[in-house]
């Protein structure tokens, strides 16, 4: 069991992680979806806010911990 836990801890950062792909952004462990438009998405994380700007932005998958955003991403900023 410890092995699995250790592996899980190694692979999954329990605080957060953000993956940026060509047309996708995957955010793990966000707290709140603040703004959602096709040009701007604002997410609130534990210690900062995440601002994503682009065009044709849309949510592809969403649950209470993680979100997958699809679209043309032009800018990603942290807001503290």
């Amino acid at each position: 069991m410890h092995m699995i836990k250790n592996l899980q801890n190694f692979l999954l950062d329990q605080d957060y992680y953000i993956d940026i792909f060509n047309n996708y952004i995957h955010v793990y462990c966000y707290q709140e979806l603040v703004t959602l438009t096709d040009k701007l998405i604002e997410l609130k994380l534990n210690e900062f806010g995440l601002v994503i700007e682009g065009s044709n932005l849309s949510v592809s998958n969403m649950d209470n911990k993680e979100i997958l955003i699809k679209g043309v991403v032009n800018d990603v900023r942290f807001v503290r």
Partner: protein
Amino acid sequence: MKHYVRGRIKTNSRTNLLLKLNRINVDIRNIKYEKDYIYFDILSSDIKKIKKYLISYKFEVIDELGIYKLKKELRVNMLFIVSVVFACVVFLILSNIIVKVNIIHQNKDLRELINEDLKEYGVTPMSFKKSYDAYEEIISKIKNKHKDRIEWLEIDVDGMVVNIRVEERILNEEKEEKGYCHVVANTSGIITHILTAKGVALVGVNDFVKKGDILISGEVKLNEEVKNDVCASGRVYAEVWYNVKTSLPLNYTLKEKTGKMRYNIMVKNDMGEYVILKSRVKDKEVKNKYLVKLFGYQVYLQKEYEVIQSNKRYTEEEALNKAISLVHEKLAVKETQTPKIIKEKVLQKSVNNDTLDIEMFVAVEEQIGVVEPYTKEMDSDTSDRTDNDNNNSVS
């Protein structure tokens, strides 16, 4: 296992809806936007939350996902699946059932004998087929049981029919037991042709012979002494004369095809013939084309040609020609081969009550020799007597 469903919500403001779903902690996946609808996958347990908190939105379940979809499909198509399974089972059973046991041999006694044995070993109509080894075992058992009657036996399974091919054992008999025979004339005539296979020809071409005369003798003689007796064989052709009378009605019914043709299906078995569809032509001539054999029934495609019947009358010349051809047919029935007509003449013709009566003289060439056995004892006595006479004369 998590139960996901595919659903959709109609909305003008997608962002608001997504924010609301996010706030009530509803997990959604595979989100797709189409016109005024948002399609997504959602846990079935979250549907209650949507209905409770998002009253102004109408949520519709489109489809089940995962194993539940399979369950749903099975439930919806239960009748079809059961039918297919049932059909497969029926097909499997039918393809392993014997509908007909066909014993192929001319001898009725042998057929019945084998049929009894097959019943004993369980090869009967409406029973299950057996394996190749089982059939081999049955073959060897039957052959051992009837060593003196069966030369060869084969069981051939053709679909639902079991064909038993059998060869009867014929014990070779001594040729001597067959006896001795002459070829004698079965009718009077003038010999035209002789083919001697065995024996001594006693007549020649252009000889006149009467019924019962010996044509080819079984006695092989040398210097008037019988040296050997055989069963004479050969073919003797002679010119034979017949006086044939025949009658022909002058009125007859002529059937003519109208050109109208209809298809039908005909099935045939040992009990008779049955037409599947109702016949749509009143008077018809049919032609059958074999299609397939199914469950012991032979299925034919039947072409029904519509015909019109009309009453006709022969002219005197037509009637005479027809009557002459009838005479030829009569002679052909009498002969195994088509007779060779040498000459013919109408002796008398008369019309009585719309019937033409004719009497004809016909000379034909036909085979007149028939095998007639004789006993050697009588002849050998005679030959002995002759020998004695000869001996006496010598002494």
